[in-house]
């Protein structure tokens, strides 16, 4: 009997499966959309580097059959910057969580976006620190219950798409894991973009965040996404709110501007020419 291979067989590291994620977690959908985008684009997997920081989604770099690196907490974008500049042929994809990218790694994120360095960042936003058991983070909504906001969250959350756009990203979008096809198309677009691209993916964490906030199952959380999501392409990311009633999603920004890599190469070429002419 011949064994039929799964269409994504070559995209995943079989020896790392089964994955570590909980029932109802959306990270598997993000992984699925990511490898589907790689497959659709027919990208040479030998030239892709998947980088992740610490957290549940951070393990994605181990599951993806590309060159991959699992950095220290928060440093994925900075690490990826070094890789991309040292070898511009490589496609750098950072997939990490909201805490990793925007709390401990927030400084690296805004500066990479400002430089418009050629890195594609996908953020799994589950509104809390899942791996450590559900503490509040920079995206936890006001009033939400987490283990470290036992009386309700009193901190304002970041609006990640607004932050990315204001920091200088060339492409900014937000989807939920319910919007798998749109997310896949968005990843494909982002991967072909020159410069810094950012996609926020709202993802269910029913075992931890949902459990404490009256959405006990993955289905409950997906139902919230279904009821609350409104697609507002090209709308102002500053107004892209996330509330119990309304989650504004869509493609907010898609602009052309020279990437850091291009500017750096141009400068190096000028210096080289000057050297040849003997200064």
């Amino acid at each position, binding site marked *: 009997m011949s064994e039929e291979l799964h269409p994504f067989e070559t995209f995943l590291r079989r020896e790392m499966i089964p994955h570590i994620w909980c029932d109802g977690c959306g990270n598997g959908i993000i992984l699925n959309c990511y490898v589907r985008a790689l497959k659709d684009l027919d990208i040479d997997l*030998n030239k892709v580097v998947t980088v992740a920081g610490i957290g549940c989604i951070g393990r994605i770099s181990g599951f993806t059959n590309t060159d991959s690196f699992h950095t220290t907490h928060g440093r994925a974008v900075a690490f990826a910057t070094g890789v991309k500049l*040292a070898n511009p042929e490589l496609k750098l994809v950072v997939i990490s969580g909201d805490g990793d990218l925007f709390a401990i790694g927030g400084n690296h994120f805004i500066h990479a976006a400002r430089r418009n360095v050629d890195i594609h960042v996908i953020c799994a936003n589950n509104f809390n620190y899942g791996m450590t058991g559900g503490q509040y983070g920079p995206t936890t909504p006001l009033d939400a219950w987490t283990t470290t906001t036992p009386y309700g969250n009193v901190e304002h959350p970041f609006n990640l798409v607004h932050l990315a756009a204001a920091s200088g990203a060339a492409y900014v979008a937000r989807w939920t894991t319910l919007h798998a096809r749109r997310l896949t198309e968005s990843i494909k677009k982002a991967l072909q973009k020159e410069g810094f691209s950012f996609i926020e993916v709202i993802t269910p964490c029913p075992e931890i965040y949902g459990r404490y906030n009256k959405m006990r199952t993955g289905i409950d959380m997906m139902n919230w996404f279904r009821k609350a999501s409104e697609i507002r392409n090209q709308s102002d990311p500053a107004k892209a709110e996330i509330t119990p009633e309304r989650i504004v999603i869509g493609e907010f920004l898609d602009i052309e501007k020279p990437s850091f890599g291009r500017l750096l190469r141009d400068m190096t070429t000028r210096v080289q020419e000057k050297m040849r002419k003997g200064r």
Partner: protein
Amino acid sequence: MAEKSRAVLTGKHFMEGDIACAEGAIAAGCRFFAGYPITPATEIAERMAQRLPEVEGVYIQMEDELASMAAVIGASYAGVKSMTATSGPGFSLMVENIGLAFMTETPCVIVNIMRGGPSTGQPTKPSQQDVMQAKWGSHGDYEIVALAPSSVQEIFDLTIEAFNLSETYRTPVVVLADEIVGHMRERITIPKADEIRVVNRKKPQVPPGEYAQFRPDEDLVPPMACFGEGYRFYATGLTHDESGHPTTSSAEAQQKLVQRLCDKIRKNADRIVKTERTMLEDAEVAVVAYGITSRSALSAVRKARETGIKAGLLRLVTLWPFPDKQISQVAKKVNAIVVLEMNYGQIVREVERAAKETPVIFLPKLGEEPHKPAEILQAIGRARQ
């Protein structure tokens, strides 16, 4: 006739230590620098910003030292020799990812031009206060390699050596220089490019299917595939097996990995460690010093000889792994050892440990100047009694 090398500025120069450090790095093949401005190491960054584009390398000024060290590891994994340079406060931030570099066996060089601490301390003044931090700064068991230059020529030579050691052992190497060595100007000779020994990391000799990123050869060092070479490996700061897969629950895996990473340095200590012996053959008193203080020490030892005291100097070129054997050999022959440091007692503890029964006199110095030869001479006199 080959075009005159842009990478190696062969000839005699009058040069600042920080600049010589940058030139040593470029001569060693460094083509990536990520850093953050900090006194008294900024000149290294400035020189790299000017020079790297000339040799088709990349300079980037990161948002902080956490990012700098992360980018250096990334560039090294992309196959490019990479470095950063900083001072105490920046080094404090870098130790996080120096741990990652050790765990993921990343060849890279970190230069620390030491200034006065703790905290912001004295930014423009010299110290040797980060010696223990270099060894123990990151969490967990690890072995660092650290070199201590004492002149402008030597910071050039040892920066090359730092790259060679990092490539040989697939490990981060620290150049620990004090502010005086970083900022003083002296004559140096830069050799011809083909006279400079340059080591490059071992590459895999097997096809991707048979390769494991962390499977060591007999010397405990694994050959290193880099991103984009078709090996499609996974590296993580988590405890991992030879394939790089996380093994976070296995005691055996933890023991196997941490032991090998440490033994890779410990068992090669004889090949790594360098010291310089002066007038020690018949010495009754040995002075142990490193970096700029070793130059005052040499002057004091000569003066002592003039007054009939048989003194000698053991200069530590390698600080980590610690030159246990070399200290022990000296301790067996002398009546006492004098240790000089521009701190309040760091390497002296290692000397005391290695010297066993031999008395050790410690001469600390905090602040602007290194020890004066007269102060050292006095200590030598005390040690003789």
